[in-house]
């Protein structure tokens, strides 16, 4: 049943691949999807000399950081006309016209900051205009725009150039006091402090990414320091995020179930004090006692750790998942719980929003990928396919259905998940197919004639309530369209960029998989009648199994 669960079984990897990895025997350097082949393009890792005693105790997280042109920032709309970042999918028409889509083929145009050669850029089309192309090759001091991967390993933060073939980071920052655990980047930060870093000690820093890149030392340069020595909360920072459109506000989640709201333009020197938590089992929000201090508010969310937080794109909603297995969705402005629900069992480890804010993915210790609907305020699908805990989930906002007609009627989502089983899974979700058949006419369906079990689908969920774990038979199941073992170590992170899929393992190795080229997609669309025929042996038809 498992094809390659044992790391020692060596599946012959494609010999033609220039990116074969001697460190990952038996791992194929490509995987096939209905739309074509994803190929391993680059790998990134930390300097191998770093085998600190604390190594293994931290789990690597990855942040994508796009630096814009320094002077006179240009609007990104000029670069990719055919695609709207907020729609979540693009129309096929736009793609066929080729507007801004040549970039999707292979747009790696050498390094930012002029570090690397152009040898890999032979396939770049002339119309390539992606925002992350390097226009200032001569610029060696990171003044221009560029796309970077920020990741933490042990006591250090590493920064890699996404578009360079260089495996080693361009920058490492070591922390003497504690290990960095989480980070976040805001490309639109106004005063230059765009990178957030949360530490094991609870300390939080904001810095300028560009300033770090330009500095040659291994120290953090020009940071603003909050929650110094854990003075407000000395529990581990687990997740950190800028508030979208929040004018420099950011939030930090801690391992004790508390989340703090900071305002960036406020001094962090004044320690905040908060009233004692009245009832640790209840959600509560408290303002800091002094208006001048930072953080400005404490949200007590749950007992046990908050494992991950995510803002919807518009900043209206904040999702949290934690040790208690609950997904919670808050209205950030009104500080009210909108909805939420429990995992099938065990803690939830990760969460992510769809671009349109309609769905949230979660992954956790029940090996399931959950799809939560904001409209229904409940779980609408379970993705079954991981053989271990699900540690990273993300919608592919750059993907559009090959057979979408552009009318928006046939809404389909592509998302991915990574797990501690070392696998990357890709999934297709067609909402009209999944939700509609489940709505029963009043009076009962032939499948569920009696019993309260089916209440999951009948009840209108009131605002502000948390749902218990659903029964197994009530939730429709999804199967992945592909399952690919991408690393030898358990995975910890997944991201989709316009040109690639980025996977990260716990130990701090990153892989960048390029999407199928445009020509491949078009030739593939002829054989789309039977998309499963070209898949890997571990693949399943992209069918939704309705509850029996």
């Amino acid at each position, binding site marked *: *049943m*498992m094809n390659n*669960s*044992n*790391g*020692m079984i060596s599946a012959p990897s494609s010999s033609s691949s220039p990116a074969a990895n001697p460190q990952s025997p038996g791992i194929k350097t490509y995987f096939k999807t209905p739309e074509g082949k994803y190929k391993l393009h680059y790998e990134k890792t930390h300097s191998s000399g770093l085998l600190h005693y604390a190594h*293994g105790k931290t789990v690597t997280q990855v942040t994508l950081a796009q630096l814009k042109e320094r002077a006179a920032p240009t609007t990104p709309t000029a670069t990719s006309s055919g695609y709207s970042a907020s729609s979540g999918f693009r129309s096929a028409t736009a793609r066929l016209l080729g507007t801004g889509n040549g970039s999707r083929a292979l747009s790696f145009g050498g390094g930012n900051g002029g570090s690397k050669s152009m040898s890999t850029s032979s396939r770049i089309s002339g119309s390539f205009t992606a925002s992350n192309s390097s226009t200032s090759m001569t610029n060696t001091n990171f003044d221009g725009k560029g796309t970077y991967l920020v990741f933490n390993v042990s006591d250090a933060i590493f920064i890699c150039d996404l578009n360079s073939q260089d495996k080693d980071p361009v920058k490492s920052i070591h922390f003497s006091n504690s290990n960095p655990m989480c980070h976040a980047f805001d490309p639109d930060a106004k005063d230059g402090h765009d990178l957030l870093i949360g530490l094991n000690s609870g300390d939080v820093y904001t810095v300028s990414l560009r300033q770090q890149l330009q500095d040659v030392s291994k120290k953090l340069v020009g940071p603003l320091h909050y929650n110094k020595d854990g003075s407000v909360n000395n529990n581990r920072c687990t997740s950190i995020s800028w508030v979208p459109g929040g004018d420099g506000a950011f939030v930090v989640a801690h*391992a004790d179930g508390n989340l703090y709201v900071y305002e960036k333009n406020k001094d962090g020197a004044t320690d905040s004090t908060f009233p004692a938590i009245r009832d640790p089992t209840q959600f509560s929000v408290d303002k800091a006692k002094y208006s001048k201090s930072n953080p400005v508010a404490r949200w007590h969310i749950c007992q*046990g*750790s908050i494992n991950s937080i995510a803002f919807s794109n518009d900043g209206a909603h904040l999702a949290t998942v934690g040790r208690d*297995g609950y997904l919670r969705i808050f209205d950030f402005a009104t500080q009210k719980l909108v909805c939420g629900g429990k995992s*099938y*069992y*065990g*803690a939830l480890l990760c969460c992510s929003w769809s671009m349109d804010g309609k769905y949230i993915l979660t992954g956790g*210790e*029940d*090996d399931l990928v959950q799809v939560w609907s904001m409209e229904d305020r409940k779980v609408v699908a379970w993705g079954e396919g*991981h*053989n*271990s*805990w699900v540690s990273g989930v993300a919608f592919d906002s750059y993907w559009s259905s090959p057979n979408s007609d552009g009318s928006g009627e046939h809404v389909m989502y592509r998302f991915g998940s990574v797990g*501690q*089983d*070392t696998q990357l899974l890709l999934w297709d979700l067609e909402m009209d197919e999944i939700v509609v058949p489940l709505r029963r006419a009043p009076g009962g369906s032939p499948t569920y004639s009696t019993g309260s079990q089916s209440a999951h689908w009948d009840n209108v969920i009131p605002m502000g309530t948390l749902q218990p*774990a659903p*029964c*197994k*038979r009530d939730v429709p199941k999804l199967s992945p369209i592909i399952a690919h073992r991408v690393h*030898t*170590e*358990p995975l910890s992170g997944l991201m989709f960029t316009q040109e690639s899929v980025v996977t990260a393992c716990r130990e701090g190795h990153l892989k960048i998989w390029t999407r199928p080229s445009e020509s491949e997609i078009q030739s593939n669309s002829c054989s789309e009648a039977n998309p499963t025929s070209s898949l890997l042996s571990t693949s399943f038809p992209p069918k939704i199994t309705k509850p029996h």
Partner: protein
Amino acid sequence: MGAAGSKLEKALGDQFPEGERYFGFENFGNTCYCNSVLQALYFCVPFREQLLEYYTSNKSVADAEENLMTCLADLFSQISSQKKKTGVIAPKRFVQRLKKQNELFRSYMHQDAHEFLNYLLNEVVDILEKEAKATKTEHETSSSSSPEKIPNGLKVPQANGVHKEPIVTWVHNIFQGILTNETRCLRCETVTARDETFLDLSLDIEQNSSITSCLKNFSSTETLHAEDKFFCDKCCSLQEAQKRMKIKKPPHILVIHLKRFKYIEQLGRYKKLSYRVVFPLELKLSNTVEPYADIEYSLFAVVVHVGSGPNHGHYVSLVKSHNHWLFFDDENVEMIEESAVQTFFGSSQEYSSNTDHGYILFYESLGPTK
């Protein structure tokens, strides 16, 4: 030892649970396999309660005739009646009895904790059954309500067709589950189901997997063909068939044994698999028969094997008691963070400095399993 005890007391402070005792066990030379399992059983509350109840009601009898169960009951009672809250106890009488009774455990060799647990539970069952039979013959005609009878529908049919009522002891009530082995003849589609009972589940493990996945594999469908055909009673011949194992009745306490010691034919010996197998603190079984589908279990003890090989090493245990996690290493008892349980999952690389691996997991049902 006293200092260590007070350290634990200090760590717990006024959160020290009322009436609870945390005592380490002295090691009599490679008896850590025994110590680690005994700690897990002591903190298996229904087992402890039943055994102490047995001890109180059979005190006079126990004095007359010593067996492994009376020795265990004696040890548990000794712990629970300690004046001090923490300390060290020497399970001398129990270990002596164990060695006297079974030559397997007599040597000073490293022993397998799972084998010991299995032996101990079966031994206790035997003793209880013998006693129950004795009581039964005494009250042959009277309508005795004890021992309990297995409710209808769960009768295990005997080979000779005679329905002998199996005796159900409190050990069965705590640990026993029923597996059903369903075989479907691929020719006539007839499903033959055979039930068997279990006190623990031994699962094959794979690198970078979860307990959920191991359980799924345990119940995955297997096709019997070629040399391995199934004799179908209806077809009266050997046929290809599909076989799968499901849990018909989940136990109240689910004991999961990870098969970390695997016989490697080429080597002609056992090898330890250090695979990383994650186990959640809460678990539901995916391979049950309705209506037991969504019963939730909570992890309360882990027996950990420390070391790289099967023939040497050490055993320790992690125990959850009153929402605190404790680490028992022979005479030492420490409090640990819940998150520290993760450090016993195993290693994703074959050669690793991490050799502390979860070996036997104890889950308690949070819902009705009866």
